[in-house]
Structure formats: structure tokens, C-alpha cells
């Protein structure tokens, strides 16, 4: 046991003095990740805010033919401005990106309207342009609203209740809580936590085999009167500590960063107080051992530091695959998912952040199965550390 502690202490001291290790453990995960999330969230907020707030300037051709329509549009915060000369010019303007949308009112518009024939009106837009599509949708909705208003007036003039055209009255009842809505977006967090955890121990994991070998310190180390199990356990232990440090820091920095995100404007609240931070740490803690063992294992097969780095960057993304798949398919937590490390942590964290009740059986299975895989891989690491080929 003393030997394991000696190795452990030496690894900790050595890596605390290594700028590269410190940068990846303390800066990459904890600072980089919340910054990315804050950026994404702010971007999506400003985008959705724009819809309602800003006045849309709509180039119109033939606006003088439909003064009522224009005043209706302006009541919807859509201001008509002078458009291109004619329809062809309008299509070109949209194609070249000079305008996003152009409304074309043909000369016969007034005539058709007066004789109750469906009056033709053209909206030129590029539907492949998502940004423009949102504006086009806004204009389309406004036009539809104007059309309905006209229709109602016509029915009333004929003594018919306009309600006959609305056989259904659809009323949507949204039961999602504000934090429920934020859950999807904040689900990205578990991806970052997994990433930060692995990143924190990456260089220590490389050092355990490929690094020691490349430096020529492995052979002297192996010729000492200690068992290889003791060496590898001390090294994996130190890797775990750095991973835990990186995880804790990134949880804390998210806790702080969320205060600066205008989630309320999206109708969201985030449930990421100190209690959830602590619970999330405990939830992810079993994953640390697994991560340390996987990284050490993969690095032990590589010939050099560089090769190890290449392979480990692949490993960084492996545990995030199940999270992606589940996020895309928006699957709900299921019992069998709890056996999958990283996925179980993700699903449980999402529940916590959404402020939904967390299933205790699910937590137990997640912890036990993740610890089991971690122990198994540590054992395999130790077995492989005993082989002769380790010297390369």
C-alpha cells in the first residue's frame, strides 16, 4: 500500500508542475466548455428574441395598390419599404441576397379583391436560407391573418357568422415546466462534463506507459523491487484525482456561468444550484475510474506519446456517442440505459436539471454498473502492465 501511495504522490507532484497537464485539466474542460455553452445559448436567445421584437422591413412592389394591406402589416410590426422595379428584378434581388424577401402585389390585385376572386399576391423568398425563412414565415402569417380578417368581414356582410369556418377550437395546454424546457439545451452539459473529466486525466494516462517508455524511465522503474500492480494502481489513482479535479471545476464553472445566461428570457429556469452540483459530482464520480482505466489502457497499446495522443482524442469522443444518439432520438430514461456508463449519467443529470424526480433504482444501477466496468478495465490494465511487450 505504501508503494502505491509513493507512486501516487509522485505522479500528483510531477503533473502539478507540468503546464500542459494543468492546462488540459484546469482550463480546457472547466473554462472552455461553459464558454461554448454560454455562446450557444446566447446565440439562440438573441435569435428567438429578434422574431418578435424587431421591426421587419419588407420590400414591396406595387404597394400603392393595397394601402389597407400595408397598414395591416405595419400593425404587425412589418414596415413596407420600396422594393425593386418589377417581379424579375425582385427574383434576382432575392437570388443574389440583396433582399431576403420581396412582396409582389400584381396590378390586378385591387380588381380581384373587389370582385371577391382570390386575389393573387406573391412572396419571393429563398426557402433554403433558414434565416430568411423565419422572416418569410412571419410575413406569411401576417398575410394569412389579413386574409382571415377580410374573409370574416365578407361573411358578416352576407349575414353569416364567421365562426362557421372554424369548426374546431384547438387549445394547447403545455405542461412542461420552465426548467423542463431548458433540459434539452442543458442536456449538452453532460457531454461537456464527460469531456472535461477525460481531458483532465489524459496526460497522466499517457504518461503511465507511453510517456515513461519514451522518456526511458519505464525500464529503471520496472527493475525496482515493486510489483507492476502497485505501479499501475498508483498511476491510475493519480489519473483519477486529476479527472475528479477537472470534473469538479467544470461543474462549478457551469454553476457560475449559468447566472450570466439570460435563460429566463427563453422562459427557462435552470436547476443547477449547489445541491445539484454536488449530486452531479457524486453521479459522475464512478465514471472517473472508468475513464482513467480506459485512457490508460488505450495509451498502453501505443508506441509513442504522439500516437497515444491521437488515439486518446478518439477515446475522448467515444463516451459521448450514446449521449448524442439519445439526444437526437429524444429517448426517455429506461432501465436498460442505466447499464451504459456515460449514458446513464447523462439521463440522470438531465432529470436532475429538469427538476424531475430521480429514480433511485436507476441511480443504483448507474453507479454499480459504471463502477463494475471501471474495476474490470483497471484489472485488464494491470494484467497488460505485466506483459513483457510493455517495454516496446
Amino acid at each position, binding site marked *: 500500500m*505504501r*508503494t502505491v501511495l*509513493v*507512486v501516487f504522490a*509522485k505522479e500528483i*507532484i*510531477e*503533473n502539478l*508542475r*507540468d503546464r500542459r497537464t494543468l492546462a488540459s485539466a484546469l482550463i480546457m474542460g472547466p473554462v472552455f466548455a461553459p464558454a461554448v455553452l454560454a455562446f450557444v445559448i446566447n446565440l439562440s436567445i438573441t435569435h428567438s428574441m429578434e422574431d418578435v421584437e424587431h421591426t421587419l422591413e419588407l420590400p414591396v412592389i406595387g404597394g400603392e395598390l393595397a394601402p389597407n394591406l400595408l397598414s395591416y402589416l405595419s400593425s404587425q410590426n412589418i414596415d413596407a419599404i420600396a422594393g425593386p422595379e418589377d417581379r424579375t428584378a425582385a427574383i434576382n434581388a432575392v437570388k443574389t441576397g440583396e433582399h431576403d424577401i420581396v412582396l409582389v402585389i400584381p396590378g390586378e390585385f385591387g380588381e380581384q379583391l373587389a370582385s371577391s376572386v382570390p386575389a393573387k399576391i406573391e412572396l419571393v423568398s429563398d426557402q433554403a436560407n433558414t434565416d430568411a425563412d423565419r422572416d418569410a414565415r412571419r410575413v406569411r402569417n401576417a398575410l394569412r391573418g389579413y386574409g382571415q380578417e377580410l374573409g370574416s368581414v365578407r361573411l358578416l356582410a352576407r349575414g353569416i357568422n364567421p365562426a362557421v369556418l372554424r369548426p374546431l377550437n384547438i387549445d394547447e395546454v403545455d405542461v412542461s415546466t420552465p426548467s423542463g424546457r431548458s433540459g434539452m439545451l442543458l442536456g449538452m452539459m453532460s457531454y461537456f462534463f464527460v469531456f472535461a473529466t477525460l481531458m483532465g486525466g489524459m496526460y497522466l494516462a499517457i504518461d503511465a506507459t507511453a510517456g515513461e517508455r519514451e*522518456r*526511458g*524511465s519505464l*525500464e*529503471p*522503474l*520496472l*527493475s*525496482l*523491487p*515493486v*510489483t507492476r500492480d502497485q505501479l499501475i494502481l498508483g498511476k491510475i489513482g493519480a489519473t483519477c484525482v486529476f479527472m475528479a479535479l477537472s470534473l469538479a471545476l467544470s461543474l462549478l464553472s457551469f454553476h457560475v456561468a449559468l447566472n450570466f445566461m439570460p435563460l429566463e428570457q427563453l422562459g427557462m429556469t435552470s436547476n443547477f444550484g449547489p445541491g445539484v452540483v454536488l449530486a452531479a459530482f457524486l453521479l459522475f464520480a464512478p465514471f472517473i475510474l472508468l475513464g482513467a482505466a480506459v485512457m490508460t489502457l488505450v495509451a498502453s497499446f501505443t508506441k509513442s506519446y504522439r500516437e497515444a495522443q491521437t488515439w486518446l482524442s478518439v477515446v475522448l469522443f467515444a463516451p459521448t456517442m450514446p449521449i448524442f444518439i439519445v439526444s437526437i432520438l429524444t429517448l426517455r430514461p429506461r432501465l436498460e440505459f442505466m447499464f451504459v456508463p456515460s449514458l446513464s449519467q447523462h439521463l440522470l443529470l438531465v432529470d436532475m436539471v429538469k427538476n424531475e424526480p430521480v429514480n433511485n433504482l436507476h441511480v443504483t444501477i448507474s453507479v454499480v454498473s459504471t463502477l463494475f466496468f471501471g474495476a474490470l478495465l483497471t484489472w485488464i490494465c494491470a494484467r497488460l502492465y505485466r506483459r*513483457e511487450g510493455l*517495454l516496446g
Partner: protein
Amino acid sequence: MIRVEGIHKSFGKVRAVRGVSFNALDGKITGLLGPNGAGKSTTLRVLYTVLKPDAGSAHIDGVDVVSDALSARRRIGALPHGSGLYPHLTARENVAYFAHLCGLDRSEVDDRVDEIIRLLEIEDFAERRTKGFSQGQRTKVSLARALVHDPQNVLLDEPSNGLDVMATRSLRRLILKLKDSGRCVLFSSHVMQEVAALCDNICIIANGQVAIDDSVDGIRSRTGCDDLEDAFVHAINMVDPE
């Protein structure tokens, strides 16, 4: 005392060592001499137990290196070829780390590390991190690390590689000091003069086999060559290539 009896070791199709036997006695310096790729390092690696022999046996002070590797390692101090240090630790910390791993008492580690630092004349740079050390400085620290637990048997794989004249001289002095204190010193080299200047006994290895195992004078008379370099070449040619 080290006893090697008919060890074989292959890596895939390469038969690196084919039945090497020799003895290295306490209070003597034994040289393992041979051209590059002769099997010197492989033999030494079997002795400090990072490789297992395919056949044959080796004993350190009577302890089998295969069946009781841990006890065998306790009796040796090894300087593997191209030994590296931990660049973020100071020279002293590098040595102390090995002292702790060798199971020295916490209380005696500091004294022992001081002692070995004095013995190897590394006081001047003992407190500096080893990143950027010269080859000579690195070898000295590696040696201090290997000797910190005061082992009875000392195995050095090409220790003088990359050393300048001064460093080689102080290494030689150290090896003689170890001999005088009754240690068993076994070191490998591909330089005949160096081995001849130090060794009581020389074991010339070529193609994974022992060509000659004798004293310097014995080698001269058996090969019929007065010049040591000629004797070396002659001995190597005595081994059948495959």
C-alpha cells in the same frame, strides 16, 4: 553474485540470446563485451527481470530471477540502457522516489539520498529539475537512483555511452569503489579498451552466444592476439553465425 546458465531468448523469429552462461563474482568487475545487437542488453534485461528467458536460468545471490523476481530485484541496482529521468522532478526527488520505492524507511531516505548524492558528486545540481540536464548529469543521477538502496549486485548497461572524458573517469572511479566494497559489478560495453581497463573478467558475446569468458590475459593467450582489439575481433569470429 550472479550466475547465468544457458539462457535463451527470442523475439518472434529473432533469436537474440542463444544459450549464454557466465558467472559474475562478488568483489569483481565483470564485463559483458560484444558488438551492437550481440545480445548484451537482452541478457541484462533478463537479469533485472523485465524479460523472462525462454530457457535456461539465472540466479542473483542464489535467488531465481524467474520464480522469485521480486526478491531478485531487491538485490540488484540496474542502470538500463538509455535510462531517463522525470523532467519535472529535481535530481534529488528523482533519487528519493526510487529510495521510497525500494522500501527504505522514511527516516533513512533523506540521509541515504544525501550520501549517494555526495558519492556521485552531484551536489551542484541536486536541487535542479532534471529537464535540460546534460548526458553526463543524467547518467550520474540515474546511477545514484540505481544505487540508492545499496544493492549487492550492480548491473550497468552501456553506462559510458555519451559521456565525456571527465564523466567517464568519475564513472570508472565509482565502479572501482563498488568493487572495493565487495559488490558484484556487471556492465556491458562495446568498447574493448574500456572493458579491459576495468574488468577482472570479460565475457565476450556475439550473435547471442558466449565467445570467450576469461580474464584479459586469458583472452590474449587464447586468441593468440596481443592487441586487444584484434583479440576481440578474433573472438567474435569464433562464434558460428547461426
